[in-house]
């Protein structure tokens, strides 16, 4: 059930020069799942800002964000104790039931802050007995983050960087060189296009500028094989087979 509620910033720390982790605590009567997102109201900004859930407990949510404009720059300067109004839960999460029974090799691929929903999914899948392979992509060493957090989940973590100074050189699409039985991907448009272009079964999580986040403004529509779909309310996760390239 969608709700708006005031949360308090419990932690807001820089992971590198541009990417931050924010932990918000609040009332415990909410539910989120891997792949869902929240919409934050920021002081002085008209529109809310959508962020994929990276982690959650009974009374907290963790978000990762990259400073990309005025809103996220404001967030980076916010002190612990600041109250933010949060709309949640939004969107449909990853559909774990779509993984075919007996699939051994599940690949979870993230580019940049696409790592947030992929972290949540990694945790969820491991809790359910899967042993996923994780592929993380960054531009270079300076903008990498969350490597230790992913490795602490005991997942099989591959790291790729465009510059080649961290892990393997290239994009996380290189993880497809060993063809997975099923995949989940979240990252820049080019990365999602590359994954969808393989024709392999999987799910992709998209992002967009949004007006509302709950399906009424038609501000984030993409055309799929099933017709026009709202990234916020029909997504943000879509089946690879429905993607039009």
């Amino acid at each position, binding site marked *: 059930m969608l709700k*708006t509620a005031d949360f308090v910033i419990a932690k807001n720390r820089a992971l590198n020069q541009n990417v931050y982790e924010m932990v918000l605590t609040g009332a415990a009567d909410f539910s989120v799942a891997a792949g869902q997102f929240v919409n934050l*109201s920021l002081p002085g900004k008209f529109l809310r800002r959508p962020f994929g859930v990276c982690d959650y407990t009974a009374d907290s949510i963790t978000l990762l964000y990259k400073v990309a404009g005025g809103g996220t720059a404001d967030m980076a300067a916010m002190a612990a104790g600041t109250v933010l109004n949060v709309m949640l839960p939004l969107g449909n999460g990853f559909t774990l039931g779509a993984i075919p029974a007996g699939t051994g090799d599940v690949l979870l691929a993230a580019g940049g802050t696409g790592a947030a929903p992929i972290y949540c999914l990694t945790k969820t899948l491991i809790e359910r007995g899967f042993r996923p392979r994780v592929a993380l992509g960054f531009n270079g060493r300076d903008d990498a983050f969350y490597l230790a957090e992913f490795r602490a989940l005991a997942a099989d973590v591959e790291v790729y960087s465009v510059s080649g100074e961290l892990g393997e050189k290239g994009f996380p699409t290189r993880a497809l060189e060993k063809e997975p039985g099923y995949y989940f991907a979240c990252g820049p448009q080019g990365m999602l296009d590359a994954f969808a272009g393989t024709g392999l079964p999987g799910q992709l999580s998209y992002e967009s500028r949004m007006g509302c986040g*709950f*399906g009424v*403004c*038609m*501000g984030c*529509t*993409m055309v799929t094989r099933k017709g*026009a779909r709202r990234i916020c309310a029909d997504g943000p996760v879509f089946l690879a087979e429905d993607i039009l390239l």
Partner: protein
Amino acid sequence: MINLSVKLNDWTLKNPVIPASGTFGYGLEFSMLYDLNVLGAFSTKGTTWEPRVGNPLPRIAETASGMLNAVGLQNPGAQAVKSLYFPAIRRVFSDKLIVNVGGHDEESYIKAVELLSDDPIVGAVELNISCPNVKAGGMAIGTDAGLAAGLTAAVKKVCRCQLIVKLSPNVTDIAAIARAAEDAGADGISLINTLLGMAVDYRTGRPIIANTYAGHSGGAIKPVALRMVHQVAKAVKIPVIGMGGVETAEDVIEFMSVGATAVMVGSKNLTDPFVCKKIIERLPSVLQELGTDDINTVRGRAL
């Protein structure tokens, strides 16, 4: 007992608060958040005869105290709205609604109005001659008094309920367009639609919105909206529905003070989905503060 009810000609609304077209979908998402029956009415997403997928992304941008949108009348088409959405709305909303109708030429407007205005759930058609985000129809009609009058008269012949004409603020003389619509048979005027605007990314030097230009809405446009509602209310005898940056019960009273009979709430629904319910709950105490027990007494105080 405080009276919040207002009359749009022979249609009595339990209060003047109406979620504006394009910010409320077809009401179904909001019906899961609160009981829609607290509303005076609501205006649907702009509906066209043919289904439309709308414009490329990005369609949305933040502005100072507001936002830009260039959705482009994405909707499932009039037939789907009548056969699928109206029955679903009926299950969650027992009053009549306003159906907002767009088009790309006279024939497409007429076909949609003929089909939709025939349904008993429709209390009024809101003729959208003011959408800034479509190539044909929309604002091209609403910025020309002759075209606006011609379309209003043509649609009026097939419209089986009240016909409200929604005006564009992107004109030099809004009163002239309002009078043209009234003379052509409009039963009411609603205004303002969004102001044509633009946002640019200083880093790339490129427009942020894929469609380049977009409709500006939110609190930033309220002064323009108040001025234009004031001008139109002085120019016509038919009821006027005011909108543009309405976020509070006080804003509703201000729009009624400049002559509006009812008031639409737009963009704020997107960032606070409960805003209309909050406004309706607060109106009685604002009226009490003003020393009146009838909301109709505040209308036209600034005229």
